[in-house]
C-alpha cells in the first residue's frame, strides 16, 4: 500500500509512484523518470497539491496516497464479449477472419456496392480515389491504395468497419476479401486470378511501406 499524504500517479506496472515535482525556472513541472523514482529509498518531498494545480501539467493524473490498489469498478469482460467487439486487423494479419474472395467475385461486389462513390475503375470518384496508375513522377500521387497505403490489411480493416459509407457492415467477410482483392488488382498488386484470404492478404507487399517514418519533431528551436 502506498503511504498516506502526498500525491502519486499510476505507473505502467500499477504501482503508485510519487509525483516528484521539479520546478523548472518557475514554469511547469517535470516528472522525474520512473526508474529514478523506483530507486529512491524514500519518497521525495511533495509539493502541496495546490501549488501543483497552479503550475498545471502533471497534477491532472494525480491520485492521493490513500487511493486503493484497484478501484474495481466495471464488469469483467467475457471471452465471447471480447471476441464480439475485437474486430480490428493488425498489420501482420492478426485478426483476419476465415474465408476468402477472388478478384472476379470482388468485381461483382465492387460494382454493386462501391462503384457509385468510387467510380467504375476506382479513379473517377466522386468520393476518394482508390486507384492511381504508376509509375509516378512525384510521390505521392494522391493517397490511393497502391500509390500510398503502407499495409494491405488496413484495406480489409477499414472496409469491413466503415464501408459502404451509407450501409456499413453489410458486406460478409468473404465479400470484403473479394472486394479488397479487386481493389488491389485494380492497383496492379494482385493478378486477375488472385484470391485473398488471411494468409495471402497479409503477404501482399505494398510498394511504399518503407516510406513511412516515425515523427521526428521534438520541439525546441529546429523546424522539422
Amino acid at each position, binding site marked *: 500500500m502506498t503511504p498516506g499524504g502526498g500525491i502519486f500517479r*499510476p*505507473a*505502467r*506496472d*500499477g504501482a503508485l509512484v510519487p509525483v516528484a515535482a521539479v520546478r523548472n525556472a518557475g*514554469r*511547469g513541472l517535470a516528472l522525474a523518470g520512473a526508474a529514478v523514482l523506483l530507486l529512491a529509498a524514500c519518497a521525495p518531498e511533495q509539493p502541496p497539491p495546490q501549488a501543483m494545480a497552479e503550475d*498545471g*501539467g*502533471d497534477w*491532472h*493524473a494525480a*491520485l492521493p496516497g490513500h*487511493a486503493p490498489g*484497484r*478501484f*474495481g*469498478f*466495471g*464488469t*469483467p*469482460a467475457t471471452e465471447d*464479449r*471480447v471476441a464480439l*467487439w*475485437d*474486430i*480490428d*486487423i*493488425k*498489420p501482420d494479419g492478426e485478426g483476419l477472419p476465415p474465408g476468402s474472395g477472388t478478384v472476379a467475385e470482388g468485381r461483382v461486389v465492387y460494382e454493386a456496392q462501391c462503384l457509385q462513390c468510387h467510380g467504375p475503375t476506382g479513379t473517377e470518384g466522386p468520393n476518394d480515389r482508390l486507384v492511381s496508375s504508376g509509375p509516378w513522377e512525384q*510521390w*505521392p500521387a494522391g*493517397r490511393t*491504395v497502391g500509390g*500510398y*497505403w*503502407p*499495409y494491405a*490489411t*488496413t484495406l480489409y*480493416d*477499414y472496409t469491413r*468497419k*466503415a464501408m459502404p*459509407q*451509407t450501409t*456499413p457492415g453489410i458486406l460478409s467477410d468473404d465479400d470484403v476479401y473479394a472486394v479488397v482483392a479487386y481493389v488491389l488488382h485494380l492497383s496492379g498488386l494482385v493478378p486477375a486470378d488472385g484470391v485473398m484470404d488471411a494468409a495471402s492478404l497479409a503477404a501482399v507487399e505494398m510498394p*511504399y511501406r518503407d*516510406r*513511412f*517514418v*516515425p*515523427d521526428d*519533431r521534438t*520541439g*525546441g*528551436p529546429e*523546424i*522539422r
Partner: protein
Amino acid sequence: MPDTEQTRLSRRAWLAAASGTAASGFVMTRWDALKAEPSPGPMPVRPPQQVAPAAADPTKVPGRFVSEVGTRAPGVQPRRLVRTLALSSSSRTPLQDLQGTITPSDLHFERHHAGVPDIVAGDHELLVHGMVERPMVFRMADLRRYPQTSRICFVECSGNGGGAYSRSRMPTAISPQQLDGLLSTSEWTGAMLSTILRDVGVRPGASWILAEGADAAVMSRSVPLDKAMDDAMLAYGQNGEAIRPEQGYPVRLLLPGWEGNAQVKWLRRIEVTDRPTMTRDETSRYTDPLKDGTARQFSFVMDAKSIITFPSYPYVLPESGWWEIEGLAWTGRGRITRVEVSTDGGRSWSDAVLQPPVLSKSTVRFRHLWDWDGRETVILSRATDETGYVQPTIRQLWDARGEGTAYHQNHQRAWKVAADGVVTFGLGDLL
C-alpha cells in the same frame, strides 16, 4: 447563397456608415470595426435565429420570465461554418467572433467521418482488453465513479490551416474561421485513462493502445501507451455539461495537445497492444509526405501556432488610430511563453500581452495595441512555446517539409490591412 444588400455595399458606404461611431483618440476594438459579408461557403443549414423586436425603452416594459435553458442574446449569432452536408464533413469554430479562450460547446468545431451517432448513455459500454490482466466492460456509471479531473485544453484537427499551405493555393478572402476554425478550447471533465489502465492491469511488453469509436466509421487510432499513461482522459463533460453529441457523447478520448483525429469520440473500445494497428486514419490519412520522399507517421503533437483574429478578414477598419490587435496562440508541447506581433510585414516585432490564464496545452489570448497610420501594411504574429520552438514562417516549413502535405500547417499567419481598411489574408503578399 445570394448576394445580400451588405455584399453590394461599397467600401465607401461602409466608411460613411461608420463615421462618428469610432471617435479618434480612443482605442478601438473589433466592436468598432465593420464586417464584410464573408465569402460564401456555408449552405443555409438552419434558418436565422428569430430576433424579438427590441422594446423602445426596456425600463418601461416588463422583461421575460426565467427559463430552464438559456438563449443567446438577440442579434448575437456566431455560427459554425459548415463545409458540406455530408457524412464525412466538418464545421468550423467562428474564431473571429469569440472572446476569451473557451469555445461555447455548441460552437466547438466538428469533424466526423460517418456522421454523429445517436447514443443512449445508459446503454453505452466501453470495453478495455488486450494486454491486460483483467479485461473489463465499463458503463458510464462505472466511469463516473473514478476520481474525476477537469482540464482546459484545446482540440485541433491536424488539417487546420490546410487552406493556405502551398504557393499554388494562397487565398486572400479567408477568415480565421475558414483557415483555422478546426480549433476549439473547452474545459473537459472525466477520468484519467491512467487510473482505468491501472485498474485493468497493463501487462509487461505493452506499448500502444487502439482506441475505437462507436460511430458508423468505427473510427480507430493507435496511441502510444506513454501518452495514455501520461495525461490522456476519458472525457464525459465539456464546459460544465455533458459532452456534446458532436464531441463524442457519452465519452471520448482526450489527448491534450495532440491532433484531434486521434482523440476518438464515442469511445467504445480500448485494446492494449504491443504495436500500432495501422488503421486507415494513421496510414492513408493523417500522415505527412515530406520532400525527401518519406511520409511522417504518428505526427501527433500540434506544434506552436498563433493567429491574429482581429483585425482579420472579413473585418474592415473604418479609420486609422489606436486599434487593439488580438488573437489566439497555442501549443501541444506545453505552455506558450511568448507571442510577438509585427505590424510592418515582419521587419520588426513587439511582444504582445498574454492574457491570463496561460495554461498548458490550451489556447491563450494575446493582445497588442497598435497605432495604425492608415497606410497599407501586413500584420502577423508568431508564438514561442516552452521548449523554445518558434512558430515558423511558411518558407521555413517549405524548406523542412516541401509542399506535399496540408497537415500540421502551423506557419505564421498574416493579414493585409489595405489603406481603405479592408483586411484580407496577407500571406501571399509576403511571398
